[in-house]
């Protein structure tokens, strides 16, 4: 199991646990109230109405959207070391040296 898969499972199971707790709480709270207000099922519906779009937002647009290959803090995660050696351009110093060598060769020729 890769680290990415493990983190997905971890996040998924935490989210599922939170959802279950919130729904049970909503139901119990709704049922324990005096008649006239929202019932348990109505509160469960409202809780789901908040949670479902929230998850779509958090995983599709917000902070955890990078898990799905999308943006957010992706730029911070990229470091020179994380790039494949073949695709890394020469460092500034190296680039400057290369430039000088090329200029020298041109002058000689």
């Amino acid at each position, binding site marked *: 199991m890769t680290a990415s898969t493990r983190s997905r499972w971890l996040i998924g199971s935490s989210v599922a646990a939170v959802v279950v707790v919130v729904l049970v709480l909503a139901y119990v709270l709704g049922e324990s109230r005096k008649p*006239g207000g929202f*019932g348990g*099922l*109505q509160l*469960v*519906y*409202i809780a*789901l*109405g*908040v949670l*479902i*779009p*929230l998850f*779509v*937002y958090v995983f*599709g*647009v917000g902070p955890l*959207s990078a898990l799905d290959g*999308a*943006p*957010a803090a*992706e*730029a911070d995660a*990229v*470091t*020179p070391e994380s*790039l494949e050696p073949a*695709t*890394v*351009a*020469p*460092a*500034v110093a190296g*680039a*400057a040296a*290369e*430039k000088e060598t*090329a200029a020298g060769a041109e002058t000689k020729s």
Partner: protein
Amino acid sequence: MFTLLETIIGFTVVMLLLSFLVKSLTSVVKNHLDYYSGHLESEVRKLVLRMLGTKLEDVEFRSGGKTFRPFDGIDWKRLGEEFLTADNFKALLGPLLTASQLDALKAQVEIHKGKLNYIFARRMKNLSLACGLALCLLVNINAFTIWQTLYEDGQTRAKFAEPDYVAAVLERAGDAEDVDGTEAPAEDDAAGDDGSADQPADGEADGEGSESEAALAKEREMFRKELESFTSDVDFGVGRIYDETVPLGPGGLLNELLGSLLTGVLVSIGAPYWHDLLRTLNRVRSDEPGRRT
């Protein structure tokens, strides 16, 4: 057959009206949070890292005895896609790039520009889905009830499928597309377009903060008006969950939840889809041999 066609037309009209609402809400959220400038900065960072192997903040070179930091003080919120050009990067990074890097610069910039547009469009589609679900679930707009009411209630069906009303909605949708295409390209992403022209409205404007605040306030007001207009026009299949006189059992909860989820998914497909479908259905109806007049 005709009843079914009119029901489909009425349903499509309701979905189109709802799509406007979701589009409006998505636009409000997007302009509040300004995702585009974050993506733009992220792509520029990656481009610089790839080309020079250094972070954006560390890029510097000496020119005329002075140290020059080309990316210092850039306000990304004021920039749009037009910033990502090979000429701009040649001007900013020129002294640091080798001849081979300069040759590859144009292709690299194009790759990052494509990625910027792709990721932004995808993120906006997800945002549109989240807004659609939030709106339909919290206001409790149930596609099942809407369909059933339109199918069973001839008067309601006649109202929504009436040719003049359909023509007015189609015209409104056409106007909205024109506005999106010319004045506010940032707003059409909610409809699920390719997003290539998507930039924040303030990205290319040189306006002040107060102007963008005013624009946001206007968008919020527009959303509020559209919501009011929608709930007064479509008063069936909306908000049943909040009606204390209607008993709600587990079956009712499931029906409302699934119906609202389905509506949220359907409206986030986008206004252009519903607009095209409605136009096609309207044409089919006018070609129908046994058409009522």
